[in-house]
């Protein structure tokens, strides 16, 4: 439905067919984004988790050349406003789609399965592990000589998070990420990222 509407769209300035492009192919004027345009469509991509990084960057640069405010500085007020809005949308699309975690969260959102603030998706084993780590941090803050242990914990967490991220990318590429599985992985990543932040803060303070 949306695609059909996009195909019928005309440039607000010159009336040429735009086929939903960010800027009019004839007069180069920036077009308003259709309501409900998703971040994939902003960069001309089909909806999907397998995003090629080099292709994404190329599309981002191309879209930026078409809509960036630097290219529409001498235009009228409405064109400048549209250029600002389109440029912000293009930047948001790139920022979201290039990062596997942001992409995963967005994917959940698109499917009505927002990642909650609660961590009820996390396995009891992981919860216990985090609880133990928090106790270690409390000891550190209380002045105990556990700095080396905490530093080892930090390195371990960073390595695990990197691995979890890579696994996520592999799932995306293989297109085998069910929503519950994605939600669990992202919850765990969020949980451990928060812990890593706490570890770094505690080490910085100590």
């Amino acid at each position, binding site marked *: 439905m949306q695609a059909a509407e996009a195909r019928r769209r005309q440039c607000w300035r010159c009336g040429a067919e735009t086929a939903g492009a960010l800027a009019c192919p004839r007069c180069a004027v920036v077009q308003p984004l259709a309501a409900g345009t998703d971040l994939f469509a902003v960069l001309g991509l089909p909806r999907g988790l397998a995003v090629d990084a080099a292709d994404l960057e190329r599309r981002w*640069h191309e879209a*930026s*050349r078409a809509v*960036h*405010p*630097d*290219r529409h*500085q*001498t235009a009228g007020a409405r064109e400048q406003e549209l250029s*600002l*809005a389109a*440029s*912000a*949308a293009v*930047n*948001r699309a*790139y*920022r979201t789609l290039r990062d596997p975690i942001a992409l995963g969260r967005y994917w959940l959102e698109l499917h009505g399965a927002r990642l909650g603030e609660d961590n009820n998706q996390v396995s009891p084993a992981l919860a216990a592990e985090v609880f133990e780590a928090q106790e270690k941090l409390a000891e550190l803050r209380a002045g105990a000589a556990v700095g080396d242990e905490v530093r080892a914990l930090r390195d371990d967490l960073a390595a695990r998070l990197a691995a979890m991220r890579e696994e996520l990318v592999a799932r995306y590429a293989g297109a085998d990420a069910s929503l519950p599985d994605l939600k669990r992985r992202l919850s765990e990543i969020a949980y451990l990222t928060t812990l890593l932040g706490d570890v770094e803060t505690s080490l910085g303070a100590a």
Partner: protein
Amino acid sequence: MERIVGIDLGTTNSLVAVLEDAGPRVLPDPDTGAVLLPSAVAFLDDGSVVVGERARSLTAERPLDTVLSVKRFMGLGAEHVTAEDRRRYRIVEGREGPVRFAVGGRELTPPEISAYILRELKRWAEAAFGEPVTKAVVTVPAYFNDSQRQATKDAGRLAGLEVLRLVNEPTAASLAYGLDKEAEGVVAVYDLGGGTFDVSSLTLRGGVFEVLATNGDTRLGGDDLDDRVAELVLAALPEPVRARPEVRARARAAAERAKRALSTAEQTEIVLDVPGGPPVRHPLGREEFEALVRDVVERTTAPCRQALRDAGLGTADVREVVAVGGSTRVPLVRRHMEALFGRPPLADIDPDQVVALGAGIQAGILSGGRRDMLLLDVVPLSLGIETMGGVFTRLVDRNTTIPVAVKDTFTTAADNQTSVDIHVLQGERELAPDNRSLARFKIPIAPLPAGVPRLEVTFLVDANGILSVTAADLRTGRERSVEVKPSYGLTDEEIERMLEESIDHAEEDVRRRQVEEARVEADVILHATRESFRNHAGMLEPGEGNRIRASLAALDAARATEDYIAIRDAVDALSRETEPFARRIMDTSLQEALGDRRLEEL
């Protein structure tokens, strides 16, 4: 189409450049040919204002009325001014909003003082083009926060320049290098200016300049190196002498000269002229200088590491390191750069000019002259609002590509609140009070139990890195356009008033000059006529003497007024009245000179 100029509004020097077919070019002072305009503004007792080299030379004489490095005060409130700066300038106390300097009998904000510098550069450009210039790209330190950016834009407006784009200085420098070298890959830009330090990492690919991360310190620069050296010589003086503003100003100037000398020489001597006393001489070797300033230079280390870390880069990924800013001429700074990035810095383009040249290129991009290049810059510091318990909640993370728009939804903490206070902040700290306050405003909402209202806050950062905020009460569906009162900025009304005042002042200045010139003319003819009366009274015809005396009296009376048109008219009247008399005198003196021959024979 009207030309757009690029301006580097620097802490120490300012420049104006333009992009031409052959490339970017800095424009000279039409009177002297100099391309660097010292960013100094001096306020004289007669109300006139002097800018540039002449102003800088007045520092020793009028330290409190000569503002150097006004850029360091852009976007700040009086509470941010250091004790040293309070000794240096007369800061108006107890005023909210931007810091105010008491200079030349007026109270001026940093944008007003900067506007004098911009007006002078505008004049240079207009002299070069022979046509008015009203549009400019102005560079700012990448690490400038929202208030500082806003203040820079305001300065442009006050100078009669529409600031089409604020460009980050290291990014501008990379444009100049990118154009020059057609380079590809990762570039780090190390920009140590007179008062600010920036470091940015960028990738250059296919004409797109993408800033990956930026970091810096807006209170670190060459001035800090000078201060260290100045303290060394000042220490030799007794306390009351040392504390005198004119002595401190001279010491800083002497220190700056010594620093420059040591960029090429191994040894120099600091000479400080002390008014009413013998000069202080202090030999200074490069090694001693480096020991004095080493920790200042070391302060650039952490921002450099952070700019690489935030970009996800290691030093091995960096293809080129670019040196920007006059302070990168200091050998210690160069060595430090090399140690940090593992390669010697590039400095093929004059580090004093490279930012202005880049600004000129960006001006060319905006006017459509360079369609092949595009800049994608970032917001330097995170933006957010204060939430329950004084926590800083981020909406936009630092190093996010601009323009950026982010929406977030908030609710209330107490029952039946009829309004919500929104406190907008910028910075990287966890607690709100540790970050820089940008603005506060109040949103009226429908009274509901705590946690029920839904307030949607939208942050929009434009391509200048300047934030605007809107908020909507989602329960009532009413969108509120927000009146943001900048904490340390100028309101639109204030700018309008200043513009009116500056126009008044400009007219006043022109009028004063006209009066002065007319009086000089009057004095010349009054003197000449009186001399002729005394020496050639015998050549007056009957009645002529009285007529001339009447005109003399009329001019004397006119000269005492401020009405330059009346003075000019009286000068003309006297000149007409005395013309036959003057010709007779002339003829006679010529005849005397030529012996007995009649004039007609010649």
